[in-house]
């Protein structure tokens, strides 16, 4: 682990790293906290990416679909379906329109009522699925035409329920990213405190190093290396277990809805690898800041 190279630091335990005495408890605490934060960060990342996918899907696919519901006396249903389809097929902006079969309607209701629902005995409205072209149709104009040609037809363009869902998904994604930033902040704060404690505990070491001609940068680097390695090591452990936990979640299914789709997809599985690098960078910056602040207070 200690010989892993990062672009901004050589992690080998050099003579510079050894001038600071090893510390047991603080080191383990730093690694543990970094691991816990990385574990949580994987979940926040999974949440953000999953809600992002969801918002995108609802935004793109469902935005082009709408439904016409026909509630009419049983003897008029077929006539009204035909009239509605005629109106739809002659409406600019409608790519296709088709009536759903009874089996398709039953499939829609099955998640709520189970497979043995006697659809034929229920007074269910007939449904027509409408797919828009990229340009879309004039909703108000279509409603007026349907009111004239098929009085039992009601156009539902999904916007009523789609908009709040997309908004909620976008908010969740935003909150996921905010959580990631907060975790980075907490990690930075924790490492700053740990670095300050280490600097205070090693005041005599620092005095000796300054006495023999060590610059502030040199002393700061000795602490930076140590805390960067600890942050990185902890984050690798946390990110590994977090990724395994996400992988063990049930896979996405139509029935499961959003919860079973919580995870990574395709190349997104590489994102948890970024967390240890970010943790190391945060640890590096936090320690440098703490060390230089403390050293400037010393003569």
């Amino acid at each position, binding site marked *: 682990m200690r010989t892993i190279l990062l672009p901004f630091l050589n992690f080998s335990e050099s*003579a*510079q790293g*050894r*001038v600071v*005495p*090893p510390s047991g408890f603080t080191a383990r605490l730093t690694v543990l906290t970094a691991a816990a934060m990385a574990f949580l960060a994987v979940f926040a990342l999974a949440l953000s990416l999953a809600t992002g996918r969801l918002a995108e899907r609802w935004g793109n696919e469902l935005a082009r679909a709408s439904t016409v519901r026909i509630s009419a006396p049983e003897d008029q249903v077929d006539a009204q379906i035909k009239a509605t389809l005629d109106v739809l097929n002659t409406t600019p902006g409608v790519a296709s329109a088709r009536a759903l079969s009874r089996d398709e309607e039953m499939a829609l209701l099955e998640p709520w009522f189970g497979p043995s629902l006697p659809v034929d005995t229920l007074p269910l409205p007939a449904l027509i699925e409408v797919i828009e072209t990229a340009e879309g149709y004039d909703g108000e104009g279509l409603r007026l035409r349907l009111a004239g040609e098929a009085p039992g037809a009601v156009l539902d363009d999904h916007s009523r329920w789609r908009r709040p869902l997309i908004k909620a998904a976008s908010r969740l994604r935003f909150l996921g990213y905010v959580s990631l930033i907060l975790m980075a902040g907490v990690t930075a704060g924790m490492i700053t405190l740990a670095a300050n404690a280490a600097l205070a505990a090693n005041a*005599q*070491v620092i*005095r*000796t*190093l*300054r*006495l*023999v*001609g*060590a*610059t*502030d*940068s*040199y002393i700061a680097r000795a602490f930076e290396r140590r805390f960067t390695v600890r942050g990185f090591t902890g984050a690798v452990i946390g990110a590994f277990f977090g990724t395994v936990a996400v992988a063990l979640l049930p896979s996405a299914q139509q029935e499961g809805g959003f919860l079973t789709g919580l995870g990574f997809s395709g190349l997104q599985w590489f994102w948890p690898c970024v967390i240890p690098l970010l943790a190391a960078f945060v640890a590096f910056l936090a320690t440098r800041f703490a060390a230089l602040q403390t050293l*400037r207070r010393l*003569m």
Partner: protein
Amino acid sequence: MIEFHNAGYGYGGRELLTEMTLSLAPGSFHFLTGPSGAGKTTFLKLCYRELQATAGRVSILGQDTREMGRDEVAQLRRKIGVVHQDCQFLDHLSLAENVALPLTVADRPRDDQDLVDLLAWVGLTEQIKAKPPELSGGERQRAALARAVIMSPDVILADEPTGNVDWEMSLRLLQLLVELNRMGKTVVIATHDMHLIRQAKSQVQARVLRISNRRIQQSGADL
């Protein structure tokens, strides 16, 4: 080499040293004497910029200490060897690593044979792998001296180097400091041991700086 121009140092509204004007010439040997609490350690700290003069001007190796930044102070200390009374070491490193510490922090390569020769010069070859807590008072003082000279500094400042050792070890340390002076180093030893100063008489041409009543007085006669 080191010049004080009407320099003084005070802390908390109290003047510890005042109106000091003197010059330590290259290759000179000085004893700094005075009663305990007179300000010998403070004077030495002004000489390697551990403290900053609060009045007048102190110039070290041609640099005015008032104008030095933190990195410049660090660079300056690589040219000045300091032997402290309490010999500050890094207890988790071996004696060899402690002695080589000035080279390490300066990112300069370490010649192991030179290090062995230096430790042999101060008589610590056997303790090369020992940790500082395992060393006796005399061994620590000699190790501090070895560390002070490893960068081949121009000036050696020793603060009560014989304070915690027996007479025999005091003479050994004095001998080492005299040898350094013969190599051309400027040596300043703070001590209140008049026996040691008299003992040096036969070996080196030394001058005495005495701190009295917050002022420094130079002895006119060489010892």
